[in-house]
């Protein structure tokens, strides 16, 4: 793992997230920027997916349960060379880059998501199929902390533990913010660590914007047998853009021209 190379990819991804949302004047920049390092790690280090196997299911799979962070997914797939769509078509009529991911539009998108909580449930189904087929692929799913207010998340956790889905890795992207404010003020599902353990999952905690920490957590997940892994990844919503960091106002708002200039300046080079 070359950390500088990953950081360089993540910088490109963050710049593209801002470009896409600015160009569309619509989309979700905050959470997308926050989870960009997790996606970079998954697609450049962790997952077995390439242009030869992307059209098949004979590979690792990733479900973006927090589907509104589609700019991060599209920008990462593009950076990894897994899609060749014009990223600026995002959210425009007839684009394959729908506002929320459409699995039938792109081979590299593994599940249609957008309605919160449903991706984790679909990932449980994928992990069951993986076991039935005696495959040793890994199934990854990224859920938000706000998303974890949905009851289906716990139904899915219960099933994942009951069926001992140790190829399943559930990543909770904990950025402490949702549309209406701080999750602790809106209605708190935290601490997720205790809840995941209570269902019987193996839990790792890490800084979701730190590659060494992510590597340690994902390696531990690979070595865990007999139960699913839950990685609690603390991230900074809006990471990389000064005025968006830790600011719920940028959950689903597009930058205006002045904001765009500042953002691109913030994302000019590695720091």
């Amino acid at each position, binding site marked *: 793992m070359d950390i500088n190379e990953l950081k360089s990819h993540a910088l490109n991804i963050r710049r593209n997230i801002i470009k896409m949302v600015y160009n569309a004047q619509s989309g979700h920049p905050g959470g997308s920027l926050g989870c960009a390092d997790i996606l970079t790690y998954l697609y450049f280090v962790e997952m077995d997916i390439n242009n030869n196997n992307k059209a098949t299911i004979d590979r690792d799979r990733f479900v973006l349960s927090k589907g509104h962070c589609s700019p991060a997914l599209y920008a990462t797939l593009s950076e990894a060379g897994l899609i060749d769509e014009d990223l600026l078509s995002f959210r425009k009529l007839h684009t394959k880059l729908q506002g929320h991911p459409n699995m039938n539009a792109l081979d590299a998108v593994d599940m249609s998501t957008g309605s919160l909580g*449903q991706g984790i449930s679909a990932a449980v189904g994928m992990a069951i*199929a993986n076991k039935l087929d005696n495959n040793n692929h890994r199934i990854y799913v990224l859920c938000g902390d706000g998303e974890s207010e949905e009851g289906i998340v716990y*139904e899915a956790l219960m099933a994942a533990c009951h069926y001992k889905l140790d190829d399943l890795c559930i990543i909770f992207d904990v950025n402490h913010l949702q549309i209406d404010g701080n999750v602790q003020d809106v209605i708190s599902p935290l601490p997720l660590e205790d809840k995941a353990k209570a269902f019987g999952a193996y839990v790792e905690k890490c800084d979701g914007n730190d590659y060494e920490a992510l590597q340690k957590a994902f390696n531990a997940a690979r070595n865990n047998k007999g139960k699913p892994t839950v990685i609690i990844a603390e991230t900074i919503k809006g990471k990389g853009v000064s005025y968006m960091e830790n600011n719920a106002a940028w959950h689903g708002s597009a930058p205006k021209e002045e904001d765009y200039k500042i953002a691109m300046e913030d994302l000019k080079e590695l720091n």
Partner: protein
Amino acid sequence: MAKETRAAYGEVLSQLVKENKDIVVLDADLSKSTKTFEAKKVAPERHFNAGIAEENMMGMAAGLAASGKTVFASSFAMFATGRPWEIIRNSICYPELNVKICATHAGVSVGEDGASHQACEDVAIMRALPNMKIFVPCDYYETKALIRHVAEIKGPCYVRMGRGKVEDVYDENTVFNFDKVDVIRKGNGEIVLFAMGLMVQEALKAGEVLDATVVNVSNIKPTDEEGIIELLKTHSRAYTLEEHTIIGGLFSLVAEIKARTDIATPVTPIGINDIFGESGKMADVLEFYGLTADHIVEKIKG
């Protein structure tokens, strides 16, 4: 002979899981009632209980189907459609995944359990979903053929079955064509009765008295629009018979088709009139809601 449609489901499903290793069965703690336990006996490794968590059952079904499986997911019609409706919409219908929702205990005929368990809106809410195909078999033999049919076609399907025993309309030699509505009795050209599910048997009895044409509409979506138009054209009065709310079900289907034509034939609904059901024996409940042949004849004769 009277038999349960869900018994046919269990029998055929237990054959299908033997024939096709890509079939996976899900249930939500009702496998003995929905009869999916019959498939579990044959292929326990491909039967998964979601527990009393129907939303997650539908999400898991989507994930399994996105991994190449043909999934049969069962519960009572109330809990297989109403509670997980939005998961069915976004995770199954939008990505057009191969999930067969086979629900039992539909309609007021579930009986003693009462309103909370009497799904009379299921067809309406499934009809509104793009990519969803909907079938309502009327008897044991049609159910057997239909379950094989939905296993073969691609994409999401909803199959509506009941709880109680219903008289045979067909037999083991019947060849079904699920692209067409089935005219099972030809009348004198005055009255046509379009019926769905267990109302087909009542329609047949009423049809004898009225000398009406009786049509089994088991293919609700996509339906046989041409066939329905032809029957409307060739009869003076049409009635729809359904153990379902008259909003969004069979009446709506026929009335919507008629409204797009210049056919004058009036269409009158006989069904559940926008009210909740109540407890009682199957026969008593059907009688109370006017869904028996005597009531149908009385209503049509006026």
